[in-house]
């Protein structure tokens, strides 16, 4: 399970699940995250401030006035996690408009992959993706893995502003820009769907780690009328 537990500074515990990026390892990270979150919600653990799952790490930050590294480490080591724990993960279908005004980087992708736009979209849309983590900006999901044939590095010079709703790909991953933000992913389209809703106080992020996500294409007309 956890390969190594160490301290990250004096107020965080760093749980290392290995160096590979895979659904198997990430599912273990998410299991630990879900377990700890329930305990925090039920006030069973004192002093935890934040828990951040990522591909293969889990970072737990705590209030040094209330607890310390050894106490939280002990809690983590004593967790009884079942390998095949049932998660409440869901499937999300995301509409995406890939017309040229939204698919900003097709020209670059056609050059790099030597495929046509139709082929790229066929490979992209036929797969269901796994959400490894959310973050960087509020609600941004990191999804994978995309077909090897359409993988491509980040832009050499990142954009200063990627439009809100942009759907991007890089390496084996795909994501959605929930806010306008700087970024270097190859943009293939834009979704009108609200992925992060700050008015939804219970569950602001539509896509959570462990969820399965697939994309389907919509026309520009459907895109424009989506939120009406």
């Amino acid at each position, binding site marked *: 399970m956890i390969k190594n537990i*160490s301290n990250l500074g004096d107020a965080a515990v*760093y749980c290392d699940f290995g160096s590979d990026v895979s659904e198997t390892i990430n599912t273990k990270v998410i299991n630990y995250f879900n377990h700890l979150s329930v305990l925090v919600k039920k006030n069973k653990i004192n002093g935890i401030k934040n828990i*951040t799952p*990522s*591909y293969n790490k889990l970072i737990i*930050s705590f209030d040094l006035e209330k607890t310390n590294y050894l106490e939280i480490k002990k809690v983590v080591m004593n967790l009884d996690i079942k390998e095949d724990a049932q998660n409440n993960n869901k499937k999300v279908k995301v509409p995406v408009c890939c017309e040229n005004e939204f698919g900003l980087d097709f020209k670059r992708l056609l050059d790099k992959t030597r495929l046509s736009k139709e082929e790229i979209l066929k490979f992209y849309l036929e797969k269901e993706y796994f959400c490894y983590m959310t*973050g*960087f900006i*509020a609600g941004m999901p990191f999804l994978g893995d995309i077909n090897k044939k359409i993988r491509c590095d980040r832009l050499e010079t990142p954009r200063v502003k990627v439009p809100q709703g942009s759907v991007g790909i890089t390496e084996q991953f795909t994501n959605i820009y929930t806010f306008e933000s700087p970024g270097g992913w190859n943009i293939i389209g834009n979704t009108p769907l609200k992925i992060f809703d700050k008015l939804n106080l219970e569950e602001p*992020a539509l896509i959570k780690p462990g969820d399965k996500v697939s994309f389907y294409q919509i026309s520009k007309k459907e895109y424009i009328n989506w939120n009406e």
Partner: protein
Amino acid sequence: MSNTYFQILRPGINTTIQDGGRNHLYHVGITVSGAIDQRNLKLVNKLVENQLDEAVIEFAYQGPLLKLKNGKIIFSITGDVLFKIIRKNSKIEDGICYKKYILEDGDQIDLISTKNTAYGYLSVKGGFKLEKVWNSYSTNTKANIGSNNGKKYSIEDKIIIKSNDLQTSKEMKMSYNKISDNIIRVIKGTNFNYFSREAQNSFFNQEFLVTKLADRMGIRLSGLKLENIVSTNIKSEGLIRGAIQVPADGNPIIMLSDHGTIGGYPKIGVVISADLDRVGQLTPRSAIKFKEVRLEEAQNIFKAYTDDTNKYLNECN
């Protein structure tokens, strides 16, 4: 129902509402926010007999010029701040930090600037009329969450004051000593061994300069390039306040309260909790040095830091 408010005659460079911060949301990408200088947040609230983590106005460098409308309040300023109180009769008083004042209807507070530090704090007894978002009043300007719709204050905004509670018995004052040490204590990071022996040595021995790229998200430093011998990228993982990332250009970045929740650069170190207030207050062109401490030592230093904070708080009991 109070009708008392601050009219903003000049908003200042980066004036926001901050409190203890917003927790339990890193996993959806929402950062902690909160006052950069948590000790001065507590002290400024204590001086007006508020809860210690009540929402206050945080300002950076040039602060706001505020005019009080429809009421009479008690306020205090902490930090290293040059400010004046302009009374209704045009009489101007030089302001003193760490002291309680009464402000009358029509009086103005001119928060001219911070001195050799980045942030200052203004509290009002009883607090401001705001709504919590995810259990915090803090303004998060990146995700537009929190007070003032997640935006810094601008000239047309009003800051509404909760009460006209002037029930006060005594004078409130603290004799605050600002620590002007340039040593920042650090615990080695999870990727410390990504750096060459020379880089590891120079990290703890050479001086770094704070660049002008310093804000509530983080502080970029410049110095001798820190050579990475393993990889200039890691698989993205969580970040925390105080984490020091080193991107491919070899210049360290220290994460502050509004940092991105995950990052993909190696972490060479983490600033200890007791030094976070001081790091956040650094201004461009200041020179700093990192000093290595071990976990147990950091925990003891934090106890001393907490005792110091309590000593100041007790001056007002």
